C-alpha cells in the first residue's frame, strides 16, 4: 500500500514531504502534553487566594502557571512574575528554579530552543545540590524535549531516560507515562517503529492503569500514526477514534483537532478522500478556535495534498497558498518552506519547471537564512530531480552530489552536536569535579577551623589560668598587704605606746625637775634668808639683852621655820640624793631609825654598784621612799631590810616584818601607793612583784634593767 503522497513523482520525495508534515503533527502532540485539567487548575487557584506567602503557595502558583501555558500567555507571564518575587522574598531557590523552568517552556514554545536550554540550565544549576527528584525529572524532560526539537535525538533520549529514572524513583506515574511517550517519539523519529510502539504502548497501558485519561491521548495518536505509517489504516483509525473519544470527553480541542487530522490522513491512505477532507475540515475548525496556527496550517497542507490526489489542482494550490499565507503571517519560516515546496510541486505538475526552480531557489535561500538545515538535502534532491526532468544534466548532477554530501553531513551535524553535548557533559563533570574539590577545600577549611577553635580554646584556657593565677596572686598580695598593714598598725601602736611611755616619763621627769627647783628655791632661797636673819638675830640678842626673851622666842620661831623649810626641801629633793646618789640617799632614809632601839632598818649593797642617771636614781629613790612610808604608816614593823644587788639588772628587795596586808584587797582598791610604785617600775621598764600575807609581813622584788640608765662618767 502506498503511503500518503504529496507528489506523484518520486516516492522518496513524497515520503520526505509527508514526513515533514507528520513531524510537525507529531511535534504538536508532545507539546500539548502539559495541559492539566481545567477543574483542577480552578480549585488550586481558589486555594492560592487563601494561602499565606509560603513555599506551598509558590508550588501551587507553578502548577497553575503550567496549566495556563496553552490557554492564556498573559496570565502565565504575571503568574511567573509573582512566582519569582515570592521566591526571592522567601529565599526559596526551588521557586526561582521553577520560574526559570517556566520561562524555558515559554522560550521553547516560541521556538527559541537555545535560549530555552540556557534558561533551563539556570534552573538546573539552582537545584543541582539538592535531591529534588521531582524538579530534576521535569527539568530533564523539558531539556530532552527541547533537544528533541533541535534534532539532538540521541542526547534527548539520554535525558528522557534520566528523567524516567527519576520519575520511577518518585513513583510519578504521570511523569513516567509522559516520558515513555516522549521516548517513543524519539524512536519514532529514528524510524525504529517497533521500539517506538513498545514505548507508546507502555505509556498508554500505564495511563489506563492509573486511570489517567489525559495522558492516554498522546500515545493513542502516536500509536495511530505508526500504524498509519505501516499502512495499517484500520488499526490507525481505531486508535485515532479512541483519542477522539477521550479528547471529546475531556473537551481538549487540541487533541480533538489532532484526532481528526490524523483520521483524515488515515482516510487519505485508504483513499477515502471525502472522509479525509471532512475530517481535515473539522480539524481545521478546531485548530482555528484555539489559534493552533501550526496545526491548522499543516492540516491545510494535508487537505491540499488530498486535492492534488483528487486532481483538483486549483483547490490544492489554494490550500497550499492558504497555508503558506498563514505560516508567513506568523513568521514560521519552516512552515513557509514546507508550503512553498508543495506549491513548487504543483508547478511541477503543470510543467512550469522554471517557476518550480524559482520557488526551490527561494526555499534554499530561506532555508540557509533560517538555518533550517534539515530541509536542505530534501531540497537539493527535489532540485536535482527537476533538473533531471528538464534534461539539465550538469546541474542535476551538481545538486545530486550536494544532496548526497549533505545527507551525510546531516548525520555529521548530529554527530557534531553530540560532540558538543559530550563536551558540555565533560564540562559539567569538570564542574562537578571542581565542586568536589571545593567541597574538599571546605572540609579542609572546616578542619583548620576546628583546629583554630581548639587553639582558641587553648588560648582562652591559658588566659583563664593567667587570670585565675593573677587573681590568686592578687589575693595573696592582698592578704600579705593586710598582714603588713596589721603589722604596721601594731608597730604604730607600739610606737604610740612608747611615745606615751616617753611622754609619761617626761611628765614624771618634769615633776622631779620641778621638785628639784622648789627644793633648791626653798633651800637656797628662803632657807638662806632665814639663816641670815637668824644670824642677825643672834647679834641683836647680844646687843639688846633686855629683850632677850622676846628675841629668843622670835628666834625659836625662825628656827622652826628654817627647820620646816629644810624638811620640805629635803622631802622635795633630798640633797644627798642629788649629791651622793641613790644608795647614800637610801641609807640616809634608813638612818632615821637609828635611835629607835626597837627597830632595825638596814641597807645592803652587793654586786657591782654603779651610779645611774639622775632621773633613774630619783625614781628608784621615790620607790624606796614610798615603800618606807607604807611600812611606817601601816605596818608597825620591827625590822626593815633593803637590798641592792647590782648585776645586768639591778635587783632590789624590800622587806618588813610588819602586819602585812591582804594582797588581793589592797591591789583592788589601789591604795598604798602601790600603783605609783608600779608605774615607776614600768617607767624604768622593770618588773615588780609583791608578797604579803596578813600578819606575815611584806616583801617586794624589783628588777630593773640598768643598761640604759647607767650614768656617764662611771
Amino acid at each position, binding site marked *: 500500500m502506498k503511503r500518503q503522497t504529496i507528489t506523484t513523482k518520486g516516492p522518496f520525495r513524497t515520503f520526505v514531504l509527508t514526513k515533514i508534515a507528520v513531524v510537525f503533527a507529531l511535534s504538536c502532540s508532545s507539546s500539548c502534553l502539559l495541559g492539566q485539567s481545567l477543574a483542577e487548575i480552578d480549585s488550586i487557584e481558589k486555594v492560592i487566594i487563601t494561602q499565606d506567602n509560603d513555599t506551598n503557595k509558590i508550588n501551587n502558583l507553578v502548577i497553575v502557571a503550567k496549566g495556563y501555558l496553552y490557554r492564556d500567555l498573559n496570565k502565565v507571564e504575571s503568574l511567573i512574575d509573582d512566582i519569582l518575587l515570592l521566591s526571592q522574598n522567601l529565599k526559596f531557590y526551588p521557586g526561582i528554579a521553577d520560574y526559570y523552568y517556566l520561562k524555558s517552556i515559554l522560550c521553547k514554545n516560541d521556538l527559541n530552543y537555545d535560549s530555552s536550554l540556557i534558561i533551563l540550565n539556570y534552573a538546573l544549576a539552582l537545584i543541582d545540590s539538592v535531591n529534588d527528584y521531582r524538579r530534576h525529572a521535569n527539568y530533564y524532560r523539558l531539556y530532552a524535549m527541547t533537544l528533541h526539537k533541535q534534532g539532538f535525538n540521541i542526547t534527548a533520549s539520554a535525558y528522557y531516560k534520566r528523567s524516567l529514572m527519576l520519575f520511577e524513583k518518585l513513583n510519578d506515574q504521570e511523569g513516567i507515562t509522559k516520558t515513555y511517550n516522549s521516548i517513543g517519539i524519539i524512536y519514532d523519529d529514528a524510524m525504529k517503529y517497533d521500539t517506538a510502539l513498545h514505548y507508546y504502548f507502555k505509556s498508554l497501558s500505564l495511563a489506563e492503569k492509573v486511570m489517567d485519561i489525559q495522558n492516554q491521548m498522546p500515545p493513542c495518536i502516536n500509536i495511530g500514526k505508526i500504524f498509519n505509517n505501516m499502512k495499517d489504516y484500520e488499526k490507525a483509525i481505531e486508535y485515532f477514534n479512541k483519542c477522539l473519544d477521550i479528547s471529546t470527553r475531556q473537551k481538549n480541542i487540541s487533541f480533538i483537532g489532532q484526532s481528526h487530522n490524523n483520521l483524515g490522513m488515515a482516510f487519505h491512505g485508504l483513499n477515502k478522500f471525502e472522509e479525509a477532507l471532512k475530517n481535515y475540515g473539522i480539524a481545521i475548525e478546531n485548530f482555528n478556535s484555539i489559534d493552533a496556527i501550526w496545526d491548522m496550517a499543516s492540516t491545510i497542507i494535508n487537505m491540499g495534498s488530498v486535492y492534488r490526489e483528487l486532481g483538483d489542482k486549483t483547490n490544492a494550490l489554494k490550500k497550499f497558498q492558504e497555508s503558506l499565507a498563514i505560516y508567513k503571517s506568523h513568521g514560521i519560516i519552516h512552515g513557509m518552506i514546507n508550503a512553498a515546496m508543495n506549491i513548487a510541486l504543483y508547478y511541477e505538475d503543470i510543467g512550469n519547471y522554471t517557476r518550480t526552480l524559482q520557488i526551490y531557489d527561494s526555499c534554499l535561500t530561506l532555508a540557509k537564512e533560517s538555518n533550517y538545515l534539515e530541509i536542505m538535502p530534501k531540497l537539493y534532491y527535489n532540485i536535482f530531480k527537476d533538473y533531471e526532468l528538464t534534461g539539465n544534466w550538469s546541474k542535476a548532477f551538481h545538486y545530486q552530489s550536494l544532496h548526497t554530501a549533505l545527507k551525510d553531513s546531516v548525520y555529521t551535524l548530529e554527530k557534531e552536536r553530540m560532540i558538543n553535548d559530550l563536551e558540555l557533559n565533560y564540562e559539567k563533570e569538570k564542574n562537578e569535579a571542581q565542586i568536589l574539590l571545593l567541597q574538599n577545600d571546605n572540609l579542609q577549611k572546616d578542619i583548620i577551623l576546628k583546629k583554630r577553635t581548639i587553639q582558641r580554646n587553648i588560648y582562652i584556657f591559658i588566659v583563664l589560668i593567667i587570670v585565675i593565677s593573677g587573681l590568686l596572686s592578687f589575693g595573696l598580695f592582698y592578704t600579705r598587704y593586710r598582714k603588713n598593714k596589721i603589722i604596721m598598725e601594731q608597730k604604730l601602736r607600739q610606737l604610740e605606746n612608747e611615745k606615751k611611755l616617753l611622754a609619761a616619763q617626761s611628765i614624771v621627769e618634769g615633776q622631779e625637775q620641778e621638785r628639784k627647783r622648789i627644793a633648791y628655791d626653798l*633651800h*637656797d632661797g628662803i*632657807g*638662806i*634668808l*632665814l*639663816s*641670815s636673819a*637668824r*644670824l*642677825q638675830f*643672834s*647679834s641683836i*640678842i*647680844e646687843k639688846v639683852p633686855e629683850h632677850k626673851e622676846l628675841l629668843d622666842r622670835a628666834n625659836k620661831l*625662825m*628656827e622652826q621655820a*628654817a627647820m620646816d623649810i*629644810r624638811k620640805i626641801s629635803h622631802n622635795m629633793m*633630798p*640633797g*644627798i640624793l642629788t*649629791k*651622793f646618789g641613790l644608795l*647614800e640617799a637610801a*641609807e*640616809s632614809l634608813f*638612818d632615821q631609825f*637609828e*635611835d629607835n632601839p626597837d627597830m*632595825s632598818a*638596814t641597807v*645592803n649593797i*652587793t*654586786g657591782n654598784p654603779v651610779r645611774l642617771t639622775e632621773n633613774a636614781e630619783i625614781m628608784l629613790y621615790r620607790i624606796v621612799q614610798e615603800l618606807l612610808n607604807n611600812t611606817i604608816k601601816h605596818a608597825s614593823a620591827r*625590822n*626593815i*631590810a*633593803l*637590798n641592792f*644587788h647590782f*648585776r645586768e*639588772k639591778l*635587783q632590789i*628587795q624590800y*622587806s*618588813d*616584818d610588819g602586819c602585812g596586808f591582804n594582797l588581793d584587797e589592797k591591789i583592788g582598791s589601789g591604795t598604798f601607793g602601790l600603783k605609783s610604785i608600779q608605774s615607776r617600775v614600768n617607767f624604768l621598764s622593770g*618588773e615588780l*612583784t609583791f*608578797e604579803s600575807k596578813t600578819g606575815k*609581813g611584806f*616583801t617586794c*622584788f624589783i*628588777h630593773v634593767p640598768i643598761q640604759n640608765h647607767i650614768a656617764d662618767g662611771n
Partner: protein
Amino acid sequence: MTKILVADDHQLLIDGIKSTLEDVEDIKIIAKANNGFEVIKILETKKADIILMDINMPYMDGLECTKIINQKFPDIKVIALTQYDEKRFVKRMIKNGASGYLLKDASKAELLKAIRDVNAGKKYFSPKLSVKFLEDHYQTPRTNPLFPHLSDREQQVLNLICKEFSSNEISKQLNISYNTVENHRASLMEKSDTKNSAGLVRWAVENELID
C-alpha cells in the same frame, strides 16, 4: 688674829657672817669666795687659818674643796657651814678633812666657839646634828634577819643547790617530792631574777646567803 675665809655662793650669808663677826677683835675675814675654785685660788696668794666652807657651791662644792685643801694646805682648817644636817654630809666632810661642822642658822656664840675651838686644834660639831656619827662610823653592820625573804624550805633547797646536789638528791635529802623541789627552785630563780642554777648560785654567793 685668826684669819677667816668665807666660802659660800650666797652673798647674803657672807654679809650676814661679816656683820656678825665685825666687832670680834681676834677674828678677821680676809677673803670671800663663791666656789671651791676661788677658794683655792685665793689661798695661793693669801694666807688663812680657817675656812668657813659651804657645801653646796657651784663648779666645786665644799666637799671636794675640803678634800683638796686637806691635801694642799694641811695647816688650814675647814669648818663646814651648811644647811645639810644629814649625817652623810657630816661624815663626808669629816672624811675629807673638815674639822668642824656648823649649820647655817648657828648663833653667833656657836660660831665663835667653833672658830676658837678649831683654831685651838679641837674639833667642833654642832650639837644640833642629831647623829652620833662617830659611833656610826665604827658601827658593825647588823645582820638583818629580814633579808632575803626566803622561806625555810627555800633556804634549804638553795643551800643544797649551791652544794651541787641535783633535784632528785635534794628531794631525797629533804624528804619532799621532786616536783616540790622544782617549785622551790623556780621560786628561788624568780626572786633572784636568775635563769638557771648557775645564776642562782652566783646570786646566793654574792648576797652571802649560803652557809
